[in-house]
């Protein structure tokens, strides 16, 4: 165990140094990566793949914004526009955001938080990755077969009558769904069965709790999107007449099926982000998360309630007034457990010791942006208001505030937080902070005008708009460039860190979870050199007091402190 390799710039120098074998360098062939069952490597593979997906989805988003910069045709025609925003939504939701945090950090971090060597079913884990990749390939095929233009919601009967590449996309969603199910099963079992000695449920990190809640939702909701996609596929292929009104089917039934999955899916997207935020706020405030039990159980409450509100997407679709009213009531109730979390995060900072490193900046912007996103969600849940706001840019802005401002920001925070552990390299703090600020301002400039646009009546999925809306659209487009600049800065900063970054100490942030206290950066192939025995909670910073030496930036951080 050594980090005395002072100028360990190249991986080779590190590798030759005796005792620094780690999961990245112990075997290096391409095949060893492709066939790996090491949860850390699978996590890294997801990280690369999902970054590419985010990149593709993001470029499509920039095209959307560019087209909307001016009235009328700016860079493409209406058909192209419809395909671009549909692909943007599909790629972002099904191929990026649903897997995102669980697949990357769930894989890398969860087993380490549990003090385990690996997930319960490592091979299934690898299989999930390839199944996911299969879904991605189908999307590409769909692109070549003449892209879909049905929106990410595939509403019948439009989707059953438009061009046939919808077939590929429904299959892709179906296949990606399997990957999601497998990952979910894997994590639930891992959390139940693979905890280290002494790791009671009360000592579980909040990240693990949130992954637990997420996985349960994944297992219970994803099969429904599976069957929905099968039915939609059959509707197109065999004209079975379940959804298509021309054949006697009912389009509203399709919407019920779709949202029965897709509403819980939004909690699949946000719950892991909640977990990451807890992991960030605690060490950077050096306090245990206030109301640990409330925060842990509110995830479960959200997961449960999340199954009962799908109808809030259909207030004006012709479902009965009674169901609308019930759905509306339960929709507000979800605000309460979420509020419990937000308030507890803020309370954690009270009398803390707040360290404004990049991950903490992301956590703070999360609190800011997600609260806007959540409160606009509550406004949408108010029946009479939703009648006015439904399918306008207000909704578009709402879900970008929660998905991009919530989940993606949390994922970026997590990426910066765990980056030293994953790669063994530090990044340039200054550049990373500038990027975080650019993203924050760019994001608000892009999406705040959209809130106003929406409540003024600008409908979504519009290729063109009436003159009243021109200024706000222009502002939004300019915002998207600032946002993109920020994200490209992140990318550059991290690539630079890979090549030139300083060697990371084992615990640069003074965190108290097992991946920081009991493992090297990067970890050895089997995570820990000895089986950890857990004697304290995940946020007991008092216990770690002696390890805060040096300049606090981790340079003087301790040897991995292995308790037996």
């Amino acid at each position, binding site marked *: 165990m050594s980090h005395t390799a002072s100028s360990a710039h190249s991986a080779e120098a590190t590798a030759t140094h005796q005792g620094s074998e780690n999961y990245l360098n112990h075997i290096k062939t391409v095949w060893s990566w492709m066939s790996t069952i090491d949860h850390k490597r699978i996590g890294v593979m997801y990280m690369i793949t999902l970054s590419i997906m985010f990149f593709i989805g993001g470029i499509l988003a920039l095209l959307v914004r560019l087209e909307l910069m001016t009235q009328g045709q700016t860079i493409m025609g209406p058909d192209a526009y*419809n395909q671009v925003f549909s692909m943007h939504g599909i790629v972002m939701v099904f191929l990026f955001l649903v897997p995102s945090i669980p697949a990357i950090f769930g894989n890398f971090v969860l087993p380490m938080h549990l003090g385990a060597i690996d997930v319960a079913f490592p091979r299934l884990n690898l299989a999930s990755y390839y199944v996911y990749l299969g879904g991605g390939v189908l999307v590409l095929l769909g692109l070549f077969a003449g892209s879909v233009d049905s929106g990410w919601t595939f509403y019948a009967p439009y989707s059953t009558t438009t061009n046939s590449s919808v077939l590929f996309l429904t299959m892709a969603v179906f296949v990606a769904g399997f990957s999601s199910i497998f990952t979910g099963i894997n994590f639930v079992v891992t959390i139940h069965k693979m905890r280290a000695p002494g790791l009671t449920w009360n000592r579980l990190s909040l990240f693990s709790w949130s992954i637990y809640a997420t996985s349960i939702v994944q297992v219970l909701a994803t099969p429904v999107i599976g069957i929905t996609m099968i039915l939609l596929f059959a509707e197109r292929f065999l004209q079975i007449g379940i959804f298509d009104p021309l054949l006697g089917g009912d*389009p509203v039934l399709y919407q019920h099926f779709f949202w029965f999955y897709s509403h819980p899916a939004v909690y699949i997207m946000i719950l892991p982000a909640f977990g990451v935020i807890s992991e960030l706020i605690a060490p950077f405030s050096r306090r245990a998360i206030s109301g640990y039990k409330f925060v842990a159980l509110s995830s479960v409450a959200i997961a449960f309630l999340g199954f009962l509100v799908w109808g809030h997407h259909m207030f004006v679709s012709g479902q009965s007034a009674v169901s609308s009213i019930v759905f509306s009531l339960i929709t507000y109730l979800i605000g309460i457990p979420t*509020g419990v979390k937000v*308030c507890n995060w803020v309370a954690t900072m009270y009398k803390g010791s707040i*360290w404004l490193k990049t991950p903490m900046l992301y956590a703070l912007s999360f609190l800011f942006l997600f609260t806007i996103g959540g409160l606009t969600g509550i406004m949408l849940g108010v029946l009479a208001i939703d009648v006015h706001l439904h399918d306008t840019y207000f909704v578009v802005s709402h879900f970008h505030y929660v998905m991009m401002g919530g989940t993606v920001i949390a994922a970026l925070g997590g990426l910066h937080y765990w980056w030293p552990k994953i790669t063994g390299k530090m990044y340039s703090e200054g550049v990373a902070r500038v990027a975080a600020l650019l993203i924050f301002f760019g994001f608000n400039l892009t999406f705040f005008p959209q809130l106003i646009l929406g409540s003024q009546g600008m409908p979504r999925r519009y*290729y063109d708009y009436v003159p009243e809306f021109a200024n706000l659209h222009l502002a939004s487009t300019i915002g998207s460039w600032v946002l993109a600049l920020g994200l490209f800065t992140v990318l550059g900063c991290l690539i630079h860190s890979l090549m030139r970054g300083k060697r990371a100490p084992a615990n640069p942030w003074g965190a108290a979870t097992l991946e920081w206290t009991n493992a090297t950066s990067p970890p050895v192939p089997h995570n820990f050199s000895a089986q950890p025995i857990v004697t304290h909670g995940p946020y007991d910073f008092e216990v770690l007091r002696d390890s805060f030496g040096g300049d*606090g930036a981790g340079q003087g951080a301790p040897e991995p402190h292995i308790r037996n």
Partner: protein
Amino acid sequence: MEPKGTLWLPPAESTLAPEIDSLFYFVYWISVIIFALVVIAMLIFVVKYRRRKADEMPPHVEENKLLELSWIVVPTILCLIVFTWGFQSFLRLGTAPPDSYEITVRAKKWLWEFEYPNGTRATNELRVPVGRNVRLVMSSEDVLHSFFVPAFRVKHDVMPNRYTAVWFNATSEGEQHIFCTEYCGTQHSGMLAKVIVLPQEEFTEWVESGGGKTDDLPLPEYGAMLYQQQACFTCHSIDGTQVIAPTFKGLYGSQRAFVDGGTATADDNYIRESILNPTAHVVQGFNPIMPASYSSLDERQVSALIEFIELQQ
């Protein structure tokens, strides 16, 4: 005397709109307050408790059960208030008063057709009397559409297999946007229409006369009007841009090539046929998506359109 909109909402032009607006602003201000509390607390803590020494250890803080309880109870109460208010307005939005004047609405890719009780029809222009309850009974001929008038705060999906309805009572004369808010394909964003709110007498006169007197309009002007009313403009431009259909500019008299290999000169007869039976000749480079419903245009209307197209050189 134009009523002004606010930063967030367009002008309120129906009897129900003010009620919905106050609900909106009530929820909005609660949200702003909650948001401000969260963000201000966060910022104060960041400044006040920022880390000064690398190895400082913050003091232990007892968790406050009362506080924990307060942020469960207060939001719950707020939610219940908003819920009660919200669903009452929703029910009012959903139930038209029994004395409402009924207009039938048919939506299809990508235009709106309105039919009045006496059979008068109009496309993309919905004329309604001011100060009267109006109920729209809507259905679609193809996919889902959605009828939205921001100024009235009403919206409802329009479906191919059942009738849905919205109602409103316009409070002042003038024109308002109608948007289609359910995605319906290529020209979803072009599926625009107008509500024209008229004084009662003017409205009655218009309906009785079967949709305004056009008999004394010269043909080219009538054609220009139909170009708007019949929504030709959603697909055909007159400035030369070609997106999904051939432009009318320079069309008349030009040589046309068809997908089946044939050709023709665009003279009166050709254009007449193109309007009444669009699939007879499908122009190269375009899909046969022009609605067949124009076959119901009468002779004078077709002539007017031909005159109009002839003028676009």
